[in-house]
């Protein structure tokens, strides 16, 4: 059971001058149920990526606890992470990059060829299995990164704005594929985005995060059955609702980071 529980997380980074500290997380709590798809939606720079890093065990919180599947840490559960930038090993082919993750998970070597083929086909890169990352476009590299996270068939999938660097058509197709995979594999997903429509289309629940220090200020359930159509009026209504929620009434007006949210 891959339930995620973040309790009272605190994290501060030293500021540029070295004197003060930038409080990124201050008493941040969030629960994601098993097999739930949760979108963290908020302005850039509000601490969403830090939340994912803390959850993945890459950043140590100053205070608070991370519980996955009932016990502290990642006891036996696997984690797939699609980073904001692809983070590929440029000296290994696309297929070898996927195998890197398979080896880390300890998957039997015999299964590698079939698995890599399957997931590369899924992200539309079947013809590029033996290409080197630097010969691919940025969007293609990001899709390799997505395939790498999926190929290990993780219990929990963390995604940090994975589709923001893709063209809208590709992103649309991949969103549908993603929903398909996570529902068949019963994956728990925590998905970071600043695109409200994307969140409405994907999520079971949308958590709107405030400006620094990050805090969940509002939650929206998305009671729309699957498969969903991207233009479903119910989804657009939810998007509008979320955006009104984010309308800057007390925040500084005209902040470009806020405006960014309005553009799907």
């Amino acid at each position, binding site marked *: 059971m891959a339930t995620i529980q973040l309790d009272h997380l605190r994290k501060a980074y030293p500021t540029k001058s070295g004197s003060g500290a930038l409080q990124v997380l201050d008493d941040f709590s969030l629960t994601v149920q098993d097999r739930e798809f949760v979108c963290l939606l908020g302005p850039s720079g509000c601490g969403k990526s830090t939340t994912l*890093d803390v959850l*993945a*065990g*890459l950043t140590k919180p100053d205070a608070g606890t991370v519980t996955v599947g009932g016990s502290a840490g990642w006891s036996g559960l*696997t*984690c*797939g*992470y699609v*980073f904001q*930038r692809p*983070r590929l*090993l*440029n*000296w*290994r*082919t696309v297929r070898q990059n996927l195998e*890197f*993750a398979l*080896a*880390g*998970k*300890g998957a039997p070597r015999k299964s590698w060829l079939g698995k890599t083929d399957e997931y590369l086909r899924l992200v539309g890169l079947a013809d*590029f299995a033996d*290409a*080197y*990352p*630097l*010969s*691919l*476009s940025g969007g*293609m590299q990001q899709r390799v990164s997505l395939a*790498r996270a999926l190929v*290990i068939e993780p219990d929990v999938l963390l995604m940090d704005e994975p589709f923001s660097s893709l063209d809208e058509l590709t992103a649309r197709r991949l969103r549908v594929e993603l929903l398909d995979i996570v529902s068949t594999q019963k994956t728990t997903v925590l998905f970071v985005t600043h695109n409200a429509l994307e969140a409405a289309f994907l999520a079971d629940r949308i958590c709107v995060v405030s400006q620094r220090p990050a805090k969940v200020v509002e939650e929206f359930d998305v009671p729309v059955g699957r498969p969903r159509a991207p233009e479903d009026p119910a989804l657009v209504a939810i998007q509008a609702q979320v955006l009104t929620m984010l309308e800057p009434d007390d925040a500084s007006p005209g902040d470009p980071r806020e405006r960014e949210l309005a553009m799907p």
Partner: protein
Amino acid sequence: MTTTVESRTPAAAAASNRRRRDAGGIWVRAMAAVSVLLAWWLTSLAFTGVVPSPLVTLERLWHIVRYEAFVSSVAVTLGRVGAGMAITVLVAVIVGIAMGRNRIVELFLDTFVLIGRTIPGLVWALVAVMVVGLNNSAPVVAVFLTATPLVVLQIWEAAKAESRDLFDMAKVFEVGRAGRLRHILLPSLVPSIVAGTKLGLTLAWQVVVLAELFGLGSGVGYQIHENFSNFDIAGVLAWTLSFALIMAFIEYGVIGRVQARLVRWRPATELKS
């Protein structure tokens, strides 16, 4: 998308480039080669008895290959170059990684790397011959002292480059420490290791020849010295030219090929130098 990939295939682009460049230029280049030979020949006419003509030099080279210890001398010198470079690269990889990953080691050693780079191989060759003596280790020591700062510099810079993002990624995918070293740190250093070796090699063979020149009893440098003492200019020319050609072949033909293979993951534009 296919076209993007195709246009970036390094080998194909380079080959088509070369073809295009060579098609018109071959006659001009042939003319250039003939002019060089002609200039050489005219010089030899002007300084008869001092400068040997191209033909005389070629005859001398044939004689050397045929009757003098050409193969064994070249083998001896190459052996010294190889031994020196092997030790150099081994030490440089360890020191370079240590300097790149540890700030204290870096601060402790950077001065010596920078100073060491400016000391000419000539001085090291003399020092090695005087301290180590006239034996096989002298040229090896000379190569080590000359080339190490240079190769370290290359690896140090590469090891310094931030690879934290990749290490974090490996951690998430549960790749262990050994795997991270083997699959992330070392491969990211390979281009600079090969480039450093190539650079060091150019220096190494000249330092070995110098050390041999200063008193060793074997090797190409010794042969050059013999011919120099007998005032046999054709001999000096034949030995230096032939050995320079052999080294150029090793550098560009052998190492260049290894380099192209090891860093084939880089797009063509970055491969140039």
